[in-house]
């Protein structure tokens, strides 16, 4: 959602540690990052802040839980939703990188893999079984994708 870009980043948490030397803010406990329609949730969020504001956030979840993100798609009321063990969001490139047990759902399309990169500008996402696409993922998992034929919303059988 392009309008998101102009919004400030708002973050809620139970506890925050601000370290001046490393210019990091560590948010812990039921963390919710909101920027327009973009929302990232997790148990911990480490934010790097430049002189001019929010730069990058790395969200993780504790135990077996996953960090999640969702963002409205441009000009629609549909949301792109994703989850992973670690989600890195960079406000300069406006990309979300999902690591390990990554899953993204957009309309009827779904992709699952070890690494998914979602570009909020182009609303495209790249999925591979390892960051950078080289070599098998730790779990040796395969990429799974369900891509809907355009103009239909009925779920099709998953493509292997």
């Amino acid at each position: 959602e392009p309008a998101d870009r102009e919004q400030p980043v708002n973050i809620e948490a139970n506890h925050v540690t601000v370290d001046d030397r490393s210019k990091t803010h560590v948010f812990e406990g039921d963390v919710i990052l909101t920027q327009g329609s973009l929302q990232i949730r997790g148990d911990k969020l480490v934010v790097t802040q430049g002189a001019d504001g929010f730069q990058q956030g790395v969200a993780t979840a504790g135990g077996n839980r996953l960090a999640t993100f969702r963002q409205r798609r441009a000009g629609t009321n549909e949301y792109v939703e994703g989850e992973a063990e670690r989600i890195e969001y960079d406000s300069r490139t406006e990309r979300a990188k999902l690591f390990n047990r990554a899953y993204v759902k957009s309309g009827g399309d779904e992709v699952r893999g070890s690494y998914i990169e979602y570009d909020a500008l182009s609303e495209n996402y790249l999925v591979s079984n390892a960051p950078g696409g080289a070599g098998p993922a730790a779990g040796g998992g395969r990429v799974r994708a369900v891509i809907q034929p355009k103009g239909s919303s009925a779920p099709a059988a998953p493509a292997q």
Partner: protein
Amino acid sequence: MAIPAHRIYPVVALALLAGATLWLERVSAPEEARTPVVERGKADFSADGTRLVSFGADGRQRYELLAERITHYPGANGTDITEFTRPRLTQTAEGRLLHLVADSGEAYREGEEILFTGKVRVRRSGIPGEPEAVFVSDTLTVWPDDERARSRTPVVLTRGDTVIRASGMQADNIFGTLQFDGRVNATMPRSGRNTP
């Protein structure tokens, strides 16, 4: 003549109730209000338009504390209290200048601990390229020698366009690291985008 139990019972019950209330009031009062334990007696001196300067062992100034008035209440075993009216504290920490103003302040144990209350406002200069930080709350306890501070009342920290709101804060190295508690809310401007 033995007093029947049913006569004594109300007295005992009331005594227990009174004791419990006193204990509850003592425990639930914020820690700042419970210090010092010794009720203050008569002031032994006061001064108007004061300037207190503290120097470290190396001879460098640690902090300067101005006040419209100071009033000293003696106390045994380091329980004396120095009260400040409209204190203004200036301290240098890690090359940054810190200015604090408040309605009033109380120094305990020869200034080892100072509790500031009433419209506490702290401004800390940034280093080049970094905006200054402004902290606002109703109370702030400062340990100047340890370069530590703590507030148990709702706080707002503003730095540039970033605003953090919380129900309490602890600062080490006078704002070198800050810990915020309660349901914390932070608003940050986003950085500029990469030009496509």
